[in-house]
């Protein structure tokens, strides 16, 4: 048996763990750093929100001295922090951790640039917050409209500008890194249309970052010049144009909205199918909708400026309605995914379903504001505040928590406690509705946003009290979550590789994954390679929805060779398979695997009861015939379908296998699959239609 003498691995020399984390270029550690720092900023910005809500609960001044301008600083920093230091880096953090795993890569394409991108984030946060200690933070709102932002005195606004330029540079570099990673480092077999939907959404998000954020950078630089060097860009007295800031800002600002929600869409599209035990309904339509949102996202910026009188209303109202179509397509994808699924209401699933409900409300009230005549009444009222919190807090933040509960066992090797999780979700969901729904009514009643005080005669007090109660409920809901994280990290790390019986590649390695992520990868024939590995034989053909007949028989196809990048792998192929080979393979398979003829069809479209027979036959207690065809010694074409032969018996290998380290991890996955894959017929992985 040929063995390969491996160079002895370098002995790791002792370094402190702090040094290890500060200098790491491992995408997983950087991902954890992103997630942790974003969560700290989430808590900070949340505390600012509680100040705002306490101030607004009753007429009169509760907390802030009206003459100090501190209230303006607080709501500016609340918005800026939540958007630039919580949602964006948090989603980038999950992308960092999960995307290379889901595409079967060892790391990001540019690991050191990845570390650079991360370390800019805390630095920009320090710049933004240092304003509070240097005579006042930025106070012109997160949109910082000129001419207010150009005239605002004090260093806070300049620190805001510099901090956001730094933050934006981090986002651009991160976007470049994700695009290069996704286009260059996918595992063999993972074509674009087999990428998990989280990866698709991160890809489109990265393209949006790449094209939108530099425009913000140019706007910020112009504002900086106006403020500090006597520039005239946004100063009408010097020949400039104040409305121009809004144009340039929102040309970034609207794609930014999708930058913040698309990765959350991706998270939901991972969680819902796993806990519905079905593939995502309409994969292709979902991908197209994602791309359409990305493209249309650049054509709607002026709907933030209907009342300025300087935009062509019919065009931007039309494009805004248009962009709600692909979003609606996704909503139907998700609902149809759950339809007649075997739903498992884990906390991750609850947050995903909560996302659907809350985001739907946020989408509908956004559609109201898309109609220009209605928007003239709603502009700058609490309706807008309600809308953006429904989509950003009810959308992105719910997605973040769904991701946290879903991927926590992968990242730390232990599940979060479901009991505390459900308490967290209940308080979180109710608090969200209570905090943000009354704002609709306040907005319709004319309450303007960004005010510190209102008259007792205005009649806004009741709704404001409700909203404040809701905000505190959300804050309280974070406590069981923090406790949950604390106690879970003290438990034994026994979640196993694949605690949710999930579909995608990140679950095909240990929890947490080794530094190089994978020792071996299963064959990728669909967007659910791990599902195919575990249940392929039960499904009457291991190939997924988009497999060709040749792939179903286990032979490489043109698409494989496109994605195939392992030269040894190609060298191992004696000949390119012909149609006859494929047919022979099919025959061999049906004899050896005992799983019946291969029927290639969408995995979710089979007739009821059909998979039942293979399910029982392919159970490990009845190992199938060992006469699996060829061995490498004979040099015959290997008529071995990838995963069909019975475990333990008739192990078939290829010459190349011997030179490879044994795949303990993947074997573990297989063993697990065997345990779970002995279902009584009612425990089939998917509901028949």
């Amino acid at each position, binding site marked *: 048996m040929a063995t390969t003498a491996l160079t002895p691995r370098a002995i790791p020399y002792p370094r402190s763990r702090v040094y290890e984390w500060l200098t790491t270029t491992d995408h997983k550690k950087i991902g954890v750093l992103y997630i942790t720092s974003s969560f700290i900023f989430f808590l900070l910005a949340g505390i600012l929100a509680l100040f705002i809500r306490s101030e607004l609960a009753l007429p009169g001044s509760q907390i802030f001295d009206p003459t100090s301008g501190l209230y303006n600083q607080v709501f500016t920093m609340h918005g800026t922090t939540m958007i630039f230091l919580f949602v964006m880096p948090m989603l980038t953090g999950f992308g960092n951790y999960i995307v290379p795993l889901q595409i079967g890569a060892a790391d990001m394409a540019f690991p050191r640039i990845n570390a650079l991108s991360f370390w800019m984030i805390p630095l920009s946060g320090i710049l933004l917050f240092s304003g509070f200690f240097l005579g006042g933070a930025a106070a012109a709102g997160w949109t910082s409209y000129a001419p207010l932002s150009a005239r605002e005195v004090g260093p806070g606004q300049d620190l805001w500008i510099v901090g956001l330029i730094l933050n934006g540079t981090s986002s651009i570099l991160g976007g470049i890194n994700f695009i290069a990673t996704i286009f260059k480092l996918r595992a063999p077999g993972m074509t674009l249309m087999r990428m998990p939907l989280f990866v698709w959404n991160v890809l489109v998000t990265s393209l949006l970052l790449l094209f939108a954020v530099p425009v913000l950078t140019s706007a910020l630089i112009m504002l900086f010049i106006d403020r500090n060097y006597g520039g005239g860009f946004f100063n009408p007295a010097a020949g400039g144009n104040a409305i121009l800031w809004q144009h340039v800002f929102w040309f970034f600002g609207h794609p930014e909205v999708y930058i913040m929600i698309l990765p959350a869409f991706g998270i939901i599209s991972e969680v819902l199918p796993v806990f519905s035990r079905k593939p995502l309904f309409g994969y292709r339509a979902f991908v197209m909708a994602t791309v359409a949102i990305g493209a249309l996202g650049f054509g709607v910026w002026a709907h933030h400026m209907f009342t300025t009188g300087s935009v062509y209303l019919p065009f931007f109202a039309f494009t805004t309605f248009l962009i709600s179509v692909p979003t609606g397509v996704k909503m139907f994808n998700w609902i149809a995914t759950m339809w007649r699924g075997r739903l498992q209401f884990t906390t991750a699933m609850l947050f995903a379903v909560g996302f659907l409900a809350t985001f739907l409300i946020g989408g509908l009230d956004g559609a109201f504001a898309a109609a220009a005549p209605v928007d003239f009444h709603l502009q700058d009222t609490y309706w807008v505040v309600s809308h953006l919190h429904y989509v950003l807090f009810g959308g992105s933040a719910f997605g973040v928590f769904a991701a946290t509960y879903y991927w926590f066992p992968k990242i730390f090797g232990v599940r979060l406690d479901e009991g505390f999780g459900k308490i967290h979700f209940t308080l979180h969901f109710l608090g969200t509705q209570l905090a943000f729904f009354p704002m609709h009514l306040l907005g319709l009643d004319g309450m303007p946003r960004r005010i510190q005080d209102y008259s007792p005669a205005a009649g806004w007090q009741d709704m404001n009290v409700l909203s404040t109660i809701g905000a505190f409920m959300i804050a309280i809901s974070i406590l069981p979550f923090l406790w949950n994280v604390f106690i879970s990290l003290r438990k034994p790390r026994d979640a196993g590789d694949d605690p949710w019986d999930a579909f995608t590649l990140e679950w095909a390695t240990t929890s947490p994954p080794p530094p190089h992520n994978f020792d071996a990868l299963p064959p990728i024939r669909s967007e659910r390679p791990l599902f195919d590995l575990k249940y392929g034989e039960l499904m009457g053909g291991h190939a997924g929805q988009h497999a060709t007949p040749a792939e179903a028989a286990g032979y490489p196809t043109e698409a494989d060779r496109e994605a195939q990048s392992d030269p040894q792998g190609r060298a191992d192929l004696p000949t390119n398979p012909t149609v006859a080979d494929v047919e022979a393979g099919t025959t061999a398979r049906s004899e050896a695997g005992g799983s019946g003829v291969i029927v290639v069809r969408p995995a979710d479209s089979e007739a009821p009861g059909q998979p039942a027979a293979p399910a029982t036959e392919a159970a490990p207690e009845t190992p199938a015939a060992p006469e699996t065809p060829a061995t490498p010694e004979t040099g015959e074409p290997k008529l071995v379908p990838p995963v069909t032969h019975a475990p333990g018996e008739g192990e078939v290998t290829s010459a190349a296998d011997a030179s*490879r380290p044994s795949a303990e991890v993947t074997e573990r996955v297989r063993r697990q699959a065997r345990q779970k894959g002995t279902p009584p017929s009612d425990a089939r992985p998917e509901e028949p239609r």
Partner: protein
Amino acid sequence: MTASGDVMVTGHGTVPTAAHETGTPLHEERGVNTALLGMLLFIASEVMFFGGLFAVYFNVRAANRVWPPEGFHVEALPIPLIATIILVVSSFTMQRAVWRIRANDRTGMNRALLVTLLLGIVFLAIQLYDYTTLGFGLSSGVYGSLFYTMTGFHGAHVFGGVIGILVVMLRGMAGQFSAGHHVAVEAVSIYWHFVDVVWIALFTTLYLLR
């Protein structure tokens, strides 16, 4: 036979293993080089950055009846045209450097890089001299702000390119490049061409379309 796990047996014989386990690359380079792709994407973001500046320029220009406003005057001849010619020529010498190293001629590449470097420095010097002759500044109205911001950020990019060329040249003198290994030269050359194209757009916008 080994019992190395049935997942290893795929239709096409092998499954890639982690790079450090076997010493073979996990992913063979196919299509555009990853570092070059990174540079192209970075340039795409730079296009959007300058796009923001150009959009503001044309917006302000369209809103002003007289353009350039009273008291602002720039001439394409002779200095800016000379600078333009110098930068365009430097693009050709940069490309020559790439062709030389593709032909494995390191000395030729170093010479072409040196010429490009000098041309870049001359361009920057001419631009700085030109600034002293204009008679308006960053704070003298929106035209001055636009003119200096656009040309200034372009100049900063030229400066970045000069640094890049210097680094590549020093690495070339240290013998680090060959016909099969010179992605840094290719990347710097793409960046330099981009800087050149931005200048041509700026020259056209600021000096010709008056």
